[in-house]
Structures are given as C-alpha cells and as structure tokens.
C-alpha cells in the first residue's frame, strides 16, 4: 500500500514551499497534514514524510514525539482536551473530567473502544478567565460545566459538532 498525501495536502505544502525561505520549516506542517490524511503518524507514515521532505526518519520521529498534538499512536476520531492547569482546576476542571470519564466509560488519556473519542488532559489553553476550558477538535468551549458533557457526547456520537463553542467570525478550524 503506497502512501500519498491528499491533493489538498500536497497543494498546501507546495504553497508553503514558496512561503518559507528554508524547506526545513515544512516538517511540522507536513506531519500535521500527514496526521490529518492518515489518522496518526505511524512509523510507515514517518518514513513517507521523511522521504518526501528529504530528511532522516529519525528527525521526523524526533519531532513527531516531541509535540503534544502530534500522535504517533492511534487515537479517537474526536479528541476532547480538558485543561488541568491551576486557574481551570480552581474553576472545576476536575468535575468536568470525572463526568466525561463516567459517560464514556474510560479514564483520562484513553480512547473509547469504538475509536470515536479520546479524552485527554492538556495544559493551559490561554483561556484562564473563562475556565474550565475545553477544546474539542480545536474548537474552544469555555466556562464548561459538567452538565454540558452529555450533550457533547451525544453530538459527537451523532456525527455533529457539539454546540456551545466559542465562535471566531470567519475562523472555523
């Protein structure tokens, strides 16, 4: 099975080639695009990306394992990130986490058996005044209460975007 970037990813990379004076800068975006195309950065995917960018596999692997949002293991189709850092902890992130664990039947850091949802603790999301802060698939959910958890899980299971996220006009992720 030969791996290949999607058309969209290839176009994005080509555009970036002209934007960045040094091709080394393409590695992280390439890994992000590969992750979106192939699900996660398996060793096979790392070899592919490394070959495309003409860097050693070890360089790609080093980068892939350094950053929190690059996954070298399989993870859920949707990722629920809950901020654990102090201001959000004071605001009640613990209760939000417990409620999600209860509803999904998994612990923090795990993925539901059907592969739909990964539940993670993350660090400060720069949202401290409106905590607890949650990000689901890079959308911000602020002042998140445990009562919202059920609706979020139902929406994700129905293939919909959970309501209540902070809109950025013209800025859908």
């Amino acid at each position, binding site marked *: 099975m030969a791996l290949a970037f999607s058309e969209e990813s290839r176009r994005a990379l080509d555009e970036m080639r002209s*934007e*960045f*004076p*040094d091709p*080394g*800068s*393409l*590695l*992280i*975006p390439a*890994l*992000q695009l590969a992750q979106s195309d192939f699900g996660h950065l398996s060793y096979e995917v790392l070899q592919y990306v490394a070959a495309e960018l003409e*860097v050693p596999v070890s*360089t790609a692997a*080093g*980068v892939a394992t*350094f*950053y*929190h*949002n*690059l996954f070298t293991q399989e993870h859920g189709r949707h990722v629920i990130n809950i901020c*654990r*850092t*102090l*201001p959000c*902890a*004071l605001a009640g992130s613990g209760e939000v986490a417990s409620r999600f664990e209860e509803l999904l039947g998994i612990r923090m850091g795990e993925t539901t058996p059907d592969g739909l949802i990964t539940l993670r603790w*993350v*660090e*400060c*999301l*720069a*949202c*401290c*005044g*409106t*905590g607890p802060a949650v*990000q689901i698939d*890079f*959308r*911000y959910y602020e002042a998140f209460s445990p009562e919202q958890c059920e609706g979020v899980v139902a929406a994700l299971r129905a293939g919909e975007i959970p309501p209540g996220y*902070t809109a*950025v*006009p*013209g*800025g*859908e*992720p």
Partner: protein
Amino acid sequence: MTDAARAGMCTLPLYTEGGEGYRGLKRAVFELSPEEVHAEVKTSNIRGRGGAGFPAGVKWGFVPRDTGKPIYLVCNCDEGEPGTFKDRWLLRHSPHRLIEGILIACRAIGCEHAFIYMREEFRGEARRLRACLAEAREANLLGDDILGSGWGCEITIFMGAGAYICGEETALLNSLEGKRGMPRVRPPFPALVGLYGCPTVINNVETLASLPAILIDGGEWYTTYGTEESTGTRLFSISGRVARPGVYEVEMGVPWSTLLDDLAGGPARGRPFKALYPGGSSTPMLTAAEVADASISFEAAAELKTFLGSGGTIVLDEGDDIVEATLNVAEFYAEESCGQCTPCREGCPWMVEILKRVASGDAVSDDLDLLVDVTRHIMGQTICAFGDGAAGPVQSAVLKFRAEFEARLNGGSGGGNT
C-alpha cells in the same frame, strides 16, 4: 457594543473607520525614516510584554545591518503561560492592530519578511488572522509596494504543534525551523544569529500591538503613563478567585488593589485573598499582605523578588490549599520540560514527587528541605528560564507558607511515619 459590532471589529473597514487604523503605519512609512521610527519606540521605553520585560527599542538596536543576510521579525504568539490570555484576546478583538504593529516594527529594523508563530490551539484565531492579512494585502497595506511607498513586507503564519516551551524565543526559532522546540545556548543571541542563522527580532503580540499608538501619539506621550522604569499601560489577564476575571488594561504604577478590587471586583467567594502569582505561574508568589502595600510595576515586583512576567495574575483565597496549588503548577512544568538539561529534566519531576508526598501526608520534614534544595539546583543552572520558572514559585510557596506544608507532614500529626 453589540455582538455584531464586536464581531465586525476584526474587519479592516471597522479598524480604519474614524481614521486611526493604520495611521501609525502611514506615519512610519511616509513621515519618518526607519531610524526615526526606531527612535520613537526607544523613547517610549516600552518593555516586552511576553515575559522578560526587555525594552523593545533596545533589543531592536542589537540587530546588525551589514551582514548581507535578511533581517527577520518573529511575532511570538505562542501564549501558554498559565494565567495569561491577553494575546488571545488581542487576536480575537483587534487582529489588525497586531498586523499594523508588525509592519511598523519591520519598517524600523529593516525586515521584509515577518513570521507569526501561533500555538496550534489558536487555529480558529489563525484563520481569522489570515482573513485579516488578506484584507490588508487587498488594501496594499501588505505586499510588494505598501501604499505605493516602494517598501515591501510579507507576513507568514506558522502554526505550532503543542508545546509550552515553544514560547521561549529560541525554542520557537528551532520549532519554526522544523526541529524539536529545544532552547538554544546563548550567546549568540537571536539579534545576531536567529531564524535560519539570520539576525532576528522576536517580540510578543501585545508589545507589537502597542506600537500603532506609539507611532500616532509619540514615544514621549507613552512615557506620560506609568512610571519612569515602567512606562505605558499593560494588559493584565486575571483569573482565579476574583469576582470578574478577564483582561484589563492597567496603567503601570497603580496599586494592586486597582486591578484586584476596582477592576476584577475583589474576592469571588467572600473569602479574603491569600496569595497570587503576579504574572503567570512562572513568577514567585506574593502573599495578600505583600500585595496590599505594593504597586504594579517592573521595579516594584523586583523589589519583592518576583516579576511581572506575562501579566497573567492568578489569585488564591483563604479557602485554597497552597500545597495543592503548588503541586498542580509543578506538574505543569514536569509535563512541559523539553528535557534538554539535566537540572530541569530531572528536577521538575522530582519536585512533583516530593509535593505529592507532602499532599498525601507521606512526607517528613527533611522532604521540605530536600524540595528547597532541588529548587536551588535548578535555578540559574539551565539553558533557558523555564527551570527558573518551575523552581522559583515552589521556593516562594515553601518560604511564605511553610506552616501549611509542615501541617501536612506525616499526616499532620507530627508523629512517625505510618
């Protein structure tokens, strides 16, 4: 202001309505020479709003103009310091002000290609910013021939991939170059050897967004606010046990009560304040008593052996447990350490282990001395300031709230280990 108007604030027409939007850039390009733009910013004495508080105008002066290499400007938009959310606020409410500030800085330092390093969690904000860059390009405020001046400048956004340490300026450069975000040994400093080995200035979002006003009203005007060493105003992010958490613009030199009580509404749940991190979790804690007599300025913070950092104030009240708070923050640093230097890589998890023992009642008094000893072996011994940020607040917590830590020893009974 209606939600619609607030949403519309991002757009170019609204930013330029009334004539102020991009007036600073126009002055910088048409009325002043690049040296004069630089001089205006030096006169303002504005100090970096990202954490280090280094005077921006002085930093710009370190850039050599005769190397034959391109000069780069990098906007540090990797806001991740716990307690800080004012850059995200600026991105959401005034992205054009940031773009204008970047262009002004570029004009001053001789940069024709600037980069904005954004943390990946700001994906929505990044798309909004891209739309604003497109508006600016359409209006000839960006590109080959800005406003027909003959001067050209480009701005490229680079998204991170999730790493607090990439807010450290040299880790940021490494990340932008496609590497792991590990800070660099200095010297050489980025002004000499920065992005792609070229002279580079890195400035924080808020620092850059402050430039349009300085260009419009002058550096001298900026110094009429604040104190001599801490000019102007700053955006403080305040969270924790206050009634009205949020982002507030504060004139430097005002008492802490202005921020804590007047603006943020005082204690949130009727309990007196206990302590706060003045400028983010990397800044040593101040007790309520220390804060009661103090004012908000770089020099006042230094006198109290702390610093203003990124202006992210986290407030605790008498109902909060200093040991638990310290443990929470220590876990942050253990998680985010890049792993490059031994004192930090080994010391941060070690602090967590000791604090966990204290929190669960399994520690003995030697553990507190050990904890302080570990902090002393981290501070000043690392390639970057992360180590100091991890260790300093732990030191301050044990120093100022020793009784709370001691009460937890051996389950608080003072007896032997169980």
